């Protein structure tokens, strides 16, 4: 059996329009893999019904190393400081990797 790896699961909730911007930012940190789910809800920005293209939210799930997570959180903090509606939280996960771990691998 493959060796279980300890990773971080970062969850980002953002309006659908900002998905591209967030993904571009992740790419700059060398992250190309993520999962996107459409979402609806409500918050201080009002109702995000998910019925119109302009009021739909997305949830992005990204698995990464602790080291990379810290850099991404700094990026998200900067986006929030500029006013972008982004929510980010993370949790520890144990993952059965698709690829067997390589010595010195980054994530």
């Amino acid at each position, binding site marked *: 059996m493959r060796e279980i790896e300890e990773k971080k699961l970062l969850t980002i909730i953002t309006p659908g329009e900002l998905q591209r911007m967030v993904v571009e930012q992740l790419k700059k940190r060398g992250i190309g893999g993520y999962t996107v789910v459409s979402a609806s809800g409500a918050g*201080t*920005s009002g109702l995000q019904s*998910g*019925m*119109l293209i*302009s009021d739909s939210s997305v949830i992005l799930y990204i698995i990464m190393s602790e080291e990379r997570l810290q850099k991404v959180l700094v990026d998200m903090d900067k986006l929030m400081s500029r006013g*972008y509606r982004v929510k980010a939280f993370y949790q520890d996960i144990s993952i059965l990797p698709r690829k067997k771990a390589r010595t010195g691998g980054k994530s």
Partner: protein
Amino acid sequence: MLGSAAANLIDPAVLFFVLGAAIGLLRSNLEIPPAIAKFLTLYLLMALGLKGGAALASGGLPAEGILAIIAAIAMAGFVPAYAFYFLSRRIDPFDSAAVAATYGSISAVTFITTQQFLSVKGVEFGGYMTVAMVLMETPAILMAVVLATAVRARQAALEVAVDDPNDDVFQPLSIREVLQEALTDGAQLLLIGSLVIGYLAGQDGKVEMSPFTADIFKGMLAFFLLEMGLLVGRQISEGRAKIDKELFLFAFLSPPINAAIALALAYLIGLQVGDAVLLAVLSSSASYIVVPAVARYAIPEARPGVYFTMALGMTFPFNILVGIPLYYAVAQSVWT
């Protein structure tokens, strides 16, 4: 005038809008699956583009059409300029810029509903008004982004700079990026593409596509307005966004003011009554699809709950229920 308003209110599509709003206000569990809701938006834009393109192919672009398009672009520049001037002295300048963009741009569904209203009344209008609508979408966004950039620069000059100039997360968006975002918006591209296809396909294409663009159109519009009513009702019942008094007044007073200016302009340049009403509706409507989408990206400091709620929860129902018959009645009385 009252008769026209009453006739509009018993239009099935408008009644479905009222029904949706009532259901939304009652917090009923009626749900339209988001995928279907989004499909309806795309359907209406596609049908609108095809019909507009076919009308352009058969009628061409007469001098009156060119004048109408110039008037539309002028209104698309004038409305956000005065809106920002008026609002930025009273409320947050970023909110002002986003609201200015929202009101300088247009609502395609209000435009479609007006076309349907005019068709039922047997009033003619030019296919070039769809081109005018497309061209009115972007100037307000660009103007608002320029204004927001100016506000940002002014604020930065007053504050101690904390941003790292080498940090690309903090680099302000260029006009090119914003323009790309606005012009590559999916809804906008579908509308422009459908307009071109409708034009190329001409009358034969119009006949072939009529089961899609004409026969089921009214039913689909009614379904979409039901969805919009639901959204409006829920926006109101949720009541999460705090709308300042000035903005509340702006949401209800600016549509008739903009419509009056547009009608005066249309009268001066000699547009026919149908085109004049459409120009009035375009000038008085507010965008709740393209502009909010771009503003979230380009003016992140502005509160989406404010400009989106104003456009969708206030101005849109005002125009659907009161504005369209009102502008038509005024135009009828002036033109005849």
